[in-house]
């Protein structure tokens, strides 16, 4: 088998550049295999995150030929091999080293979200159809690729005002949980800035778990925010009860 040529970003907070490596191609090889090959043969200190190597943990995100991907699921035979394959870190997060970025901002956003809070005296029975809808959101592996492509974060850098698609997905999972009794619309509107999302659907396109982030999570949440804050009757009821409809 011939070699593939890789151009990989090497560097840290202070900058860096693309370095070229050659890797012998094996059948079925994925980009992460190539990165491991490079570690073992040419660059033992090449910084890469990974765990499962099977698309289940969301650790190995990077931009391959400019496209945000899980490197463990990006097959070499699906890439043009007559030219070098570039591998760069996710652009929306600060580089720590090589392909490893500082994603700690996501964990800080997550902390703001009130957890599942069952309604008082619920009976722990649920219908599979109701559960199906929420299970879609709970498939999220926190690869943060959706956060990486969202222009509100990537181009406008509104990290302080905007939670990002990943956390709209998480909140959708809580709000639509059949037994949850809390409303998170105020958080969505005020702190997580859901209004800044203009439904470009870029997040949905990159989600490796095929979660319909925009249609199934963001749009219904936006509707709830509208109902709660702009419908005068709902607004009044919410003031009275502090609960969700």
């Amino acid at each position, binding site marked *: 088998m011939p070699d593939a040529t890789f151009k990989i970003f090497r560097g*840290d907070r202070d900058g860096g550049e693309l370095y070229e490596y050659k890797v012998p191609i*094996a*059948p*079925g*090889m*994925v980009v992460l*295999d190539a990165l491991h090959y490079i*570690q*073992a*043969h040419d660059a*033992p*200190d*090449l*910084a*890469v*995150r*990974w*765990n*499962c*190597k*099977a*698309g*289940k*943990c*969301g*650790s190995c995100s990077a931009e391959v030929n400019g496209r945000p991907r899980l490197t463990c*699921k990006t*097959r070499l035979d699906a890439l043009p091999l007559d030219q070098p394959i570039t591998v760069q870190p996710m652009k929306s997060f600060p580089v*720590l*080293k*090589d392909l*490893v970025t*500082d*994603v*700690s901002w996501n*964990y800080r956003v*997550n*902390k703001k979200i*009130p*957890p*599942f809070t*069952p309604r008082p005296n619920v009976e*722990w*029975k*649920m*219908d*599979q159809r109701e*559960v199906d809808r*929420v*299970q879609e959101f*709970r*498939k999220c*592996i*926190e690869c943060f690729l959706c956060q990486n492509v969202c222009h509100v974060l990537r181009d406008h850098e509104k990290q302080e005002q905007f939670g990002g698609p990943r956390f709209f997905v998480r909140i959708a999972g*809580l709000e639509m*949980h059949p037994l*949850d009794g809390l409303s998170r619309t105020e958080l969505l509107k005020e702190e997580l800035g859901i209004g800044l999302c203009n439904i470009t659907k870029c997040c949905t396109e990159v989600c490796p778990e095929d979660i319909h982030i925009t249609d199934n999570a963001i749009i219904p949440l936006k509707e709830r925010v509208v109902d709660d804050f702009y419908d005068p009757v709902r607004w009044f009821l919410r003031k009275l009860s502090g609960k969700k409809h």
Partner: protein
Amino acid sequence: MTEKYEIHEHDVLIIGAGGAGLRAAIEALAEGASVGVVCKSLLGKAHTVMAEGGIAAAMANVDASDDWRTHFRDTMRGGKFLNNWRMAQLHAQEAPERVRELEQWGALFDRTADGNILQRAFGGHTFKRLCHVGDRTGLEMIRTLQDRGVHLGIDVYMECAITRLLKDGERVAGAFGYWRENGRFVVFRAKSVVIATGGIGKAWRITSNSWEYTGDGMALAFDAGAELMDMEFVQFHPTGMVWPPGVQGILVTEAVRGEGGVLRNKDGERFMERYDPERMDLSTRDVVARAIYTEAKEGRGTEHGGAYLDISHKPPEYVKKKLPSMYHQFRELADVDITKGPMEVGPTCHYMMGGIRVDAETAQANVPGMFAAGEAAAGLHGANRLGGNSLSDLLVFGRRAGQAAAEHAKQTETPKLDDAQVEEATREMLEPFERRDGDSPYDVHRDLQETMQNYVGIFRREEDLKQGLAEIQGLKDRAGRVHVDGSRLFNPGWHLARDLKSLLTVSEAVALSALERQESRGAHSRIDFPQYDEKWSKLNNIISRDGDGMRLRHAPIAEMPSDLCVILEKKK
């Protein structure tokens, strides 16, 4: 002191943020302790996230006849009666409550028609017992626990690796480690330390385990004076992927067989008929793994040396609904559509039954202040673990460890830190940068994996094990002389240089225990001793530190009380 180091103080320090560590953290916090959790990867990426098939708990939602006694009996039978029976009892009794708790914290399991948690069949379980979410149960579990823990206020130290346990006299005083991001050292002072670091699969070439599974917790505990037990019992899961080469070893969940998948050899024969006609494809993992290995060895294997596993007789929509990640895994990584044709599968190193020896009720090791739970601890599974019994183990004994660790912290003074130990730990970490020659850690790791794969694998015999032990000694020398390139910033080569030390400790313990046990039982198969030996049915192998070496002794298993004996004797 060579450099100033950062110190954090907690009542309870938990090493590991998988299911066991997080469940321990939640419980210790509920007991009023201040809790720190350290993990090598980002939060939410521990092995627990990869678990697929389900959590075993006798909830009796699907098969009304199930109860803890049957679960207890299945676990003991699966473990060939080498299990710590008290652990097996507590596990079977408490698992249903632990699962309900998860649900109350927000986990969403698949449902039965009447709205309860759905349960599926799995190997060695008499009844449909595995609570599940499609084939991503571990993800549901770890998200639920991590969200709960973070909300309650645990401090999480992510991407921080512990390299040494610190002691104050006989007791544990905390731990020493480094931040992966910048290579700076950090010290934790704690009254209790819970080890929940998972398993050791990275010692083998073909494995379902990630880079994290280097046996750190077991090796650190061993260094600090703890006993390791049952180290010969390494589970080879019968169904890992075998093709293409890059995915070799990646797990194919047993849920495929639980949902009706069947195994065939290249002649189309359902060969399990010859190995276990009663339980067939849902026999225990040790039996199925040996069967597939034997079929391939005797020339009836598939093109790439495995067996066929076929679920394509089920409706495609059903397969995609119940096994979505298997569907995607094979489509994307192997160009196989599992709704249309068979998968190729073969054994892969998967789970460590052995580990740190602990007390059943409190999960305490023989070192004061040290606790262990989850895959890092030994006892519950005996000679072979049943599928689904690990996730429930994490919950039951994670909780018990957290509770006992908090209790212990209440009753003890803050330990003293010893600068000399910290300096020694620092020196050990910095040495590899100073060497100019010596092997690359990657080369030593590759050679260790070959050694374990070839000499300490599914089938074992005396000369192989001796050869393996000799090679491990040679590898120890090489590992002591590796050199690393680059800086201390996120440097995987440097990290591997340290991980090798843990890998070699646990590998030696496995080979030594395997050589000692001259019989075949559960996951331990000796070609030269193919039968059960009555003498060995009442003994555990225990390994402890002896100067710079390893000492092995036998410990008799305690007599089982008569009420449990009665349960075991029942037919079904």
